[in-house]
């Protein structure tokens, strides 16, 4: 059994990577046969590895690499893949910016349900054909005609106001004065 505490130093020694501690390792190897065998096997495996990788790479392999690189560099700019990649990225960014702007724009406000009337309507002339509802951020919207037409009867008015935040919807319930 080799000595675990010597393993790292023997591995470095086998590759010639120990300077100061080399003598110490060699002393240990002389007295520890298991580590001696381990060191010998390490050196053999290193030799084997270096021998296997010493074989020359065929010249044609280099030529292929050079030719491919030069061909890619000499290619006109409109035939290079990165141009298309850049175009796609720019399009995606532009679309993203467009979507962001759209989503940050205040949502149309004051969607008033049919057959309802806002209290504001009391102040507008009877012949006024449409009704405006004060909404946050001065966003206004026309109220359907039938909402105004029903102003003469006493009834409950329900106004639904949608804000820019989809989680916030304001309901405004008003009972109007009028004929029974």
């Amino acid at each position, binding site marked *: 059994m080799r000595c675990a505490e010597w393993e*790292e130093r023997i591995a470095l020694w086998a590759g010639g990577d120990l300077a100061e501690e080399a003598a110490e390792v060699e002393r240990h190897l002389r007295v520890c046969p298991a580590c001696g065998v381990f060191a010998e096997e390490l050196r053999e495996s290193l030799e084997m590895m270096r021998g296997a990788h010493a074989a020359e790479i065929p010249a044609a392999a280099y030529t292929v690499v050079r030719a*491919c690189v030069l061909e890619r560099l000499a290619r006109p700019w409109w035939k290079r893949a990165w141009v298309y990649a850049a175009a796609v990225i720019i399009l995606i960014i532009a679309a993203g910016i467009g979507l962001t702007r759209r989503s940050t724009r205040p949502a149309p406000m004051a969607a008033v349900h049919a057959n309802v009337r806002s209290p504001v309507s009391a102040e507008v002339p009877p012949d006024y054909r449409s009704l405006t509802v004060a909404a946050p951020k001065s966003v206004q919207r026309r109220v359907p005609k039938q909402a105004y037409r029903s102003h003469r009867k006493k009834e409950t008015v329900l106004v639904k106001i949608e804000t820019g935040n989809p989680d916030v919807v304001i309901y405004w319930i008003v009972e109007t004065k009028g004929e029974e």
Partner: protein
Amino acid sequence: MSTLAFTAMATDRDLAWESAKRGDLAAFEAVMRRHERLVLATALRLTGNLADAQDASQEVFLRLYRNLSRLKESEEPAPWLYRVTVNVCHDLRRKRPAEGEKIDRAADEADPQQRAMEEERRRALELSLRMLPEKERAALVLRDLEGLATDEVARALGSSEATVRSQISKARVKVRDFLERYFRRRG
């Protein structure tokens, strides 16, 4: 080599480098020729496959071309090339699963039995390198196969010398243990 000859070589190198920076592809080809062995051999040892090594080499040289102006003229490009080769090979290995060794380097050995033995040995070595973690494999390849000094390996891998020494020793032990098991099982 005489001082005069060395100076002439250095001047040629600077000229090629300068011309390549200005977009001269013939000059860049000369730059590639000078460094192609370093790049392709390292890539082959890291990927274990000639086709992948060639792809990696192409990418390394394209990056070199794009970074010619950033590299200092006085600076030796080898450390930069080693670093980029290691990074490109890592990326490639992540994208493509490891395949078997395709390069037929034993074809010129006449004796079929010897050829088979050589092939077996190479296969075992390839497997032993492939089972190493990426960093250990890179450290081992640069130190033991490319013959770089430990501090050069550390610079190429962006690690400390102590880390590289630890990686090298671990990798050597793992390769030895793998080969021992491999040949004992077959022997």
